[in-house]
């Protein structure tokens, strides 16, 4: 019956297992039926074997762990740069209408360009150096940080600002002690979006302008038609992306718990 279709947790578990089983059997089935030559479609366990071997054996110059480290390092630089510029700028724009008017048109025109479209300029300006991917990551991670900081700070009651000004607080202190604390929940929420976009943009950039990193590894795997390497890369990217998201989610929880006290 349409109205009695709620499932209890046991049933959900059962159907979920069924789902995974279906997925794997289709995969194994395709491999067994030799839908495409073996090189193009490795079986699931072959991918996992390759993945674990890549952890210690280098491919295209580095082990998987080293590639991951390289990618993550770029991500971190771009992400931190976005935070270091985005948060202060967002607070300043919320405080000063002049700054707002100055920056907004510039920001709005750049904002809608997909981060990936910055790759050509990145290549042009930075070659295959680290600046390239960092620029692309920055372009992806920056907008959510700026927007969320601005939104969080702009809703602060004018009275608090005026009271602080009356007590002699200069712009800097206003930003740090009044606006920033108020904007924290919004900022933290924006960080998750920002990290997600940044990580995605990184992969795109590495497919084109990198000499190390997980994206680069996958391109090399693709060029030599080693599909198991390509898939290993995809799994690694997914896991790291998930880990970043979970990490930020925990920070979000800690921050809101801290604020309740």
């Amino acid at each position, binding site marked *: 019956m*349409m109205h009695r279709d709620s499932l209890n947790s046991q049933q959900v578990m059962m*159907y979920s297992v069924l789902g995974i089983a279906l*997925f794997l059997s289709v995969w194994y089935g395709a491999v067994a039926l030799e839908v495409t030559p073996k090189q193009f479609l490795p079986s699931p366990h072959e991918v996992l074997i390759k993945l674990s071997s890549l952890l210690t054996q280098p491919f295209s110059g580095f082990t998987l762990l080293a590639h991951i480290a390289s990618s993550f390092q770029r991500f971190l630089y771009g992400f931190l740069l976005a935070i270091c510029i985005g948060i202060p700028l967002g607070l300043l724009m919320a405080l000063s209408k002049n700054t707002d008017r100055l920056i907004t048109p510039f920001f709005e025109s750049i904002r809608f360009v997909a981060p990936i*479209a910055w*790759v050509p300029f990145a290549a042009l300006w930075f070659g295959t150096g680290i600046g390239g991917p960092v620029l692309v990551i920055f372009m992806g991670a920056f907008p959510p940080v700026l927007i969320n900081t601005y939104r969080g700070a702009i809703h602060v009651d004018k009275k608090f600002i005026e009271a602080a000004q009356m007590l002699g607080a200069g712009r800097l202190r206003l930003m740090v002690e009044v606006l920033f604390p108020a904007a924290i929940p919004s900022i933290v929420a924006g960080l998750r979006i920002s990290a997600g976009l940044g990580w995605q943009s990184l992969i795109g950039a590495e497919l084109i302008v990198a000499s190390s990193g997980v994206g680069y590894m996958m391109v090399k795997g*693709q060029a030599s038609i080693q599909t198991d390497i390509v898939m290993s*890369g995809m799994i690694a990217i997914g896991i790291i992306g998930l880990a970043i*998201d979970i990490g930020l989610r925990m920070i979000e929880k800690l921050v809101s718990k801290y604020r309740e006290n």
Partner: protein
Amino acid sequence: MTQWLGIISANRFPTPADTWASLKTIALRGYGNGKLHQHILQSIGLVTIAFLVSAAAGVLLGIFMGANRKIEAIVNPIFLTLRPIPPLAWIPLAIVWLGLGNSAKVMVIFVAAFVPSVINTFTGIRSLDNAQREAALMLGVSRFSYYTEVLIPTAMPLIFSGLRLSLQASWTTLVAAELVGAVLGLGSILNQAAQDINPAMILVGMMSVAVCGWLMTQLLAYLEKFAMPWRHT
């Protein structure tokens, strides 16, 4: 301004004059295998096809997952496993499987555009008010009517949100895919211009991408008004 700051050498940053000149070139004489309108048509054509296929598939799956808890429980784990993999990360695999042509691009766009449609449609279907659901049961309407006259209209606002996100994702992914390897299309302009060290042309490419994307989004917004007449009386 950046020129004046000397941060980046002058010949790697486009001036307005250069940009206008490049725009004329590509529109009238052509650049990188075609004139501007040919590149635009190629890109828009690909995006439209891929978007329509992914959106249709995504909305359908979202409807079934939303209406039927068993289907939701079966599909969810597959979804959750594949979701963390960014669509762009599928590009190398797509190239291995389908080569450097259009079908690889369609595959990657599909991966990107499919997900937002599914999720938003699903949420939309689930948002059906409880009392309305019971009213439909009480009225004894056919299963088909329940889907077409109750579930889908309820989900419409969110379905369109999902379509908007899918369209954006389609554009972004297309440009990335064309950057990696394409002969014709807006992304290929960017690629060619980078190789030719032609910053003005890069800018032309980026602006074209932004304008086309904006236009398609407006079209979608117009369709949205059309599909939900009861919201605008």
